[in-house]
């Protein structure tokens, strides 16, 4: 049971072509909708039934999100796909764009139809040149086949998609910063409310979904909401792409059913590299709280199980850490990332990320003080829940979790001015 939805064409030669996609049932869902004039309500209901939750990290139910937009409002409405994929550890959307771009194109068209939208934008991470070209080629193929653009398949429904290449800012993966960036402004999150469903791209009602969420839509429509839901487990419908990396033998992207035990995923990824022992796992991208090995080995990969253990499934970016790694050094690197990527708009994140990084870096360099860990914990509390967007939380959560689970390593650094594991 793998590669059933977004990576369904992966086993075929030149999987990204329209002909390959169509040989596996591609565009059947769209054709069916347009031919049978399936109502918007029915489509949204099917998506709700599927239990599909936002694959970008927040896990918000996709069908519910679609129902927020006022479909009958006059004027332009937009579907925006978030292919910014900036979370360290995540590289799944890249493979959808590379190997099955038509699933996304079809998913966006169906989303456009279901929400009464007039156009779609796909915001692609600035570093993704090859995926960008694949996606543009797919759009061209779809347009030439009459599947995209004016009067799709003679149905009277018109919808076009534009690709937009980002410029390398992590914060532009935040949906409202992404909208600002498309509009040509500095990528900074907007204050909400108003939410994008009311006031989105160019001030118009807008739905923003992750690449994987949208690419899952055609199969949900074609094979039914129940079919998708039953792949997964309670509260976590369907299958999910996991990007697994770190100290393992076979890093890569795996599409597996929700609820698969972590131990199985680790096995698929070839197990621990060079025979070292598992020490910890960051289960959902660098912003999700780290979990110790013994907790992780008992978990299944679904929203509820990981949330119960105190972390997040996030975007499904699993970072595997073996017992040679210094957790202080690792946190130093992670905190540096958020320090550099804070947009600077609001105070706690702009000032707090730099403060945390400097203190952690100092500890790592053997300059730590006894009060530093309490200070760090306190700073995380002053950032979390105080910022305009989730980047502040993303920066603070790993700090709190690393100190919570690996306090002795930090204490060792402070006491001995050297590393507990590296011998430095």
């Amino acid at each position: 049971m793998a590669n059933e939805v977004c990576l369904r064409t992966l086993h075929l030669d030149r999987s990204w072509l329209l002909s390959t996609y169509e040989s596996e049932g591609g565009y059947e869902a769209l054709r069916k909708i347009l031919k049978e004039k399936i109502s918007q309500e029915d489509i949204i209901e099917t998506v709700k039934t599927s239990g599909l939750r936002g694959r970008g990290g927040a896990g918000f139910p996709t069908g519910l999100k679609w129902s927020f937009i006022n479909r009958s409002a006059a004027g332009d409405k937009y579907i925006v796909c978030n292919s910014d994929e900036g979370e360290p550890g995540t590289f799944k959307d890249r493979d959808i764009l590379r190997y099955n771009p038509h699933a996304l194109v079809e998913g966006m068209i169906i989303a456009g139809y279901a929400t009464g939208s007039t156009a779609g934008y796909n915001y692609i991470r600035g570093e993704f040149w090859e995926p960008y070209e694949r996606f543009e080629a797919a759009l061209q193929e779809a347009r030439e086949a009459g599947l995209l653009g004016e009067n799709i398949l003679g149905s009277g429904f018109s919808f076009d998609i534009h690709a937009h290449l980002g410029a390398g800012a992590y914060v532009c993966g935040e949906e409202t910063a992404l909208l600002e960036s498309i509009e040509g402004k500095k990528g900074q999150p907007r204050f909400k409310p108003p939410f994008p469903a009311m006031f989105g791209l160019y001030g118009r009602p807008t739905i923003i979904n992750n690449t994987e969420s949208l690419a899952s839509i055609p199969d949900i429509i074609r094979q039914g909401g129940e079919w998708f839901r039953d792949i997964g487990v309670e509260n976590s419908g369907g299958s999910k792409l996991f990007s697994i990396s770190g100290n393992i033998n076979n890093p890569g992207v795996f599409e597996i059913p929700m609820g698969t035990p972590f131990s199985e995923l680790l096995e698929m990824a070839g197990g621990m590299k060079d025979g070292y022992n598992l020490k910890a796992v960051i289960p959902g991208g660098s912003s999700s709280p780290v979990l110790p090995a013994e907790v992780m080995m008992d978990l299944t990969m679904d929203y509820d199980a990981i949330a119960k253990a105190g972390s997040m499934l996030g975007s499904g970016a699993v970072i595997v850490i073996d017992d040679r790694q210094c957790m202080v050094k690792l946190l130093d690197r992670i905190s540096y990332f958020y320090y550099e990527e804070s947009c600077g708009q609001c105070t706690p994140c702009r000032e707090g990320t730099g403060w945390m990084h400097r203190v952690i870096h100092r500890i790592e360099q053997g300059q730590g003080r006894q009060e530093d860990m309490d200070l760090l914990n306190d700073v995380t509390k002053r950032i979390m829940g105080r910022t305009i967007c989730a980047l502040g939380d993303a920066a603070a959560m790993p700090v709190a979790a690393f100190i919570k689970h690996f306090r002795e390593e930090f204490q060792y650094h402070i006491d001995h001015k050297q590393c507990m594991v590296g011998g430095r």
Partner: protein
Amino acid sequence: MSEQQTITIEVDGKKLEAAPGQMLIEVTDAAGITVPRFCYHKKLSVAANCRMCLVEVENAPKPLPACATPVADGMKAWTCSPLARQAQKGTMEFLLINHPLDCPICDQGGECELQDVAMGFGEGVSRFSEGKRVVASHDIGPLIATDMTRCIHCTRCVRFGDEIAGIRELGATGRGEHMKIGVYVERSVSSELSGNVIDLCPVGALTSKPFRYRARAWELTQYDSVAAHDGVGSNIHVHVRNHQVMRVVPKDNEAVNETWISDRDRFSYQGLYTDDRLQKPMLRQDGQLREVEWQQALLEGAALLKSVDPARLGALVSPSATLEEMHLLQKLLRGLGSNNIDHRLRQTDFRGDAANPATPWLGQRFADLENNQAVLLVGSWLRKDQPLLNHRLRKSVLAGGQVMAINPLDYDFNYSLSNKLIGAPADMVGHLAAVAAALGADTAGVNANAEAAHQAIADALKAAGKGLVLLGSVAQMHPDYSLLRLLANNIAQAAHVDLGFVGEGANSTGGWLAGAVPKAGEGLSFAGMLEQGLDACVLLNVEPEFDTANPAAMAGLLNASKVLALTTHLSPWLLEYADLVLPVAATPETSGSFVNLQGDVQSFNGAARPAGEARPAWKVLRVLGNLADLEAFDHESSRDVLEEALQSIGEIKLDNSLSNAQAVTARLVSADLQRIGGVPLYSVDMLARRSGALQHTPDGWKAGLYVCADTASQLGLVEGSSAVLRQGDGELTLPLVVDDRVPGNCVWMPTGVPGSELLGEGFGTVSLEKA
């Protein structure tokens, strides 16, 4: 939802009434509940970025920013609960970690929002022991000093540029901790409202450059006053130390200047303290002006006034003189038997005087400017002439209204004009007549040829539920002003919109009310005085070479008459022509009143000590009245003068309607080369002209003869080459400047600027050639 609907919320256990859609902070501000804030400002959009105003709201999992949380019926909020306090203190700590501890040398110290809030929400000792951020500052011009290390990134200045000034000059570049506020393009800030960012900045990042290191906030005494440099009458605070004006800042008055002032009103005070400020009375003896005591000077002055034939006595008064000064001067003149008095010193066409409106004014209240659907500007660079009226008009454009213009120069505005007809000054009459023709109105005998653009302007005015035809300062200096005025009147009547006048100076409306104009049929207008000459001429705060329409004619007048000047500054022409100069107090040094363009009488007290032995002009005029043996010059205070003036004015009836206006033939005719005059914004009066900071801004006049590229090449001239401009007997040599805002066959050389005293009136036929 009806507008009157109110809802009830509860803040800190107190029930408060609110309107739906209001933000929580507006309700708490109105109720006097303190919520700390930095980025929020009532006149700017909500940014919610400083996170200082976080408060606890029932059922919200996290503290919410009061500035961005709309109230809802039954909402309960706590501004100082443990959760709210913890959030506010957290933000405070973050704001302080990278803020330099340089309060002792910071100009903002003592009036700093960060300092104030830190007293309530900051800790005594910082837990931050890492290196602090340092940010390089750039020179953004002569008005605003920058210390960007102190910036807390509230973005008020950025939003001000975007939303109020209408030009994005300051912006945030860089991310995270590297984000900094600066100019996008490496050049100085050019908005005529730029100084307001000094007040908006909650910290010492943006401070006043001319005020820098001059005084500490707690050494200053604050006086309420009224700005004297345009017809708005912006309410200001004058900050004084040791009896000297240290700086000027705005005072809120929603009906007048809202919360802003123009840079001209803010920085003109620099002109008070210059080397040519007159310190003592001076009398011409043996051909030389020599200092004399006041007593002698006043006796000499009174003797002079009494010695001349009243019909050959005249007075010219600055349109920025106070109502009290104007009243006493006209009373003095009329007491002596002369009706020759005028404040319209830049006007050249007085042929329409018989039809003058009773009391010309803007035609609309300032706030109503925002509601216009169509406005036609005739000969007006409103943006620079009256920056805050233009700000009101900009709001009408943002709300979907149209502003159109008939101008002799392609002035840039901070909104787009929906239609503009730019042409040589002689063409303005034809354009206006064509608009009148398109409306089916009387064209006052002018041949009118309505084209599409004229029709479009006419249609827009006609379709407007509320509209305005506004005659600007350039129109009033135009040689065919009476014709422009008549046509504008006809257009306004045909389109059922208002007619308005943008007067000169701070008190032109007051000049009409106080009688600083010849009464119909009696006495000479300014033009009449120039034409017929005088035996004695009284000048009240007039710098004759720069404040009058036709310097060449003015020199003739002064040369042939005795000159008694009451003046703040001793200009070269006064030094040359005056027989007696009496030093008087400038506006912030004297009490008085101005009537602004919407008819508000605004009084103020003196704030600073007059320079040297200068006396308030009303006192000087009063004593001159006594010494000239006139009745009823026994006022004890300027308040007495005001009361007398207001009594003689009676009810203030603003009235722009023309009575029996007669058509006249246009004086200005097409020529090979026409001069375009007008007065640049920082050349309007003695103080503004002497403000070094204002003169160094991009709006300060850069000496040159301005022509477009086509005209330059026709004349065989290139940018920077020396050219000579000839007008009548006058000539002026300056470098040529190529500026495509100037229409073909025209040269832009304003009045009121150095060099203009060598020429004649601002408009007319000239020649230009290689020097």
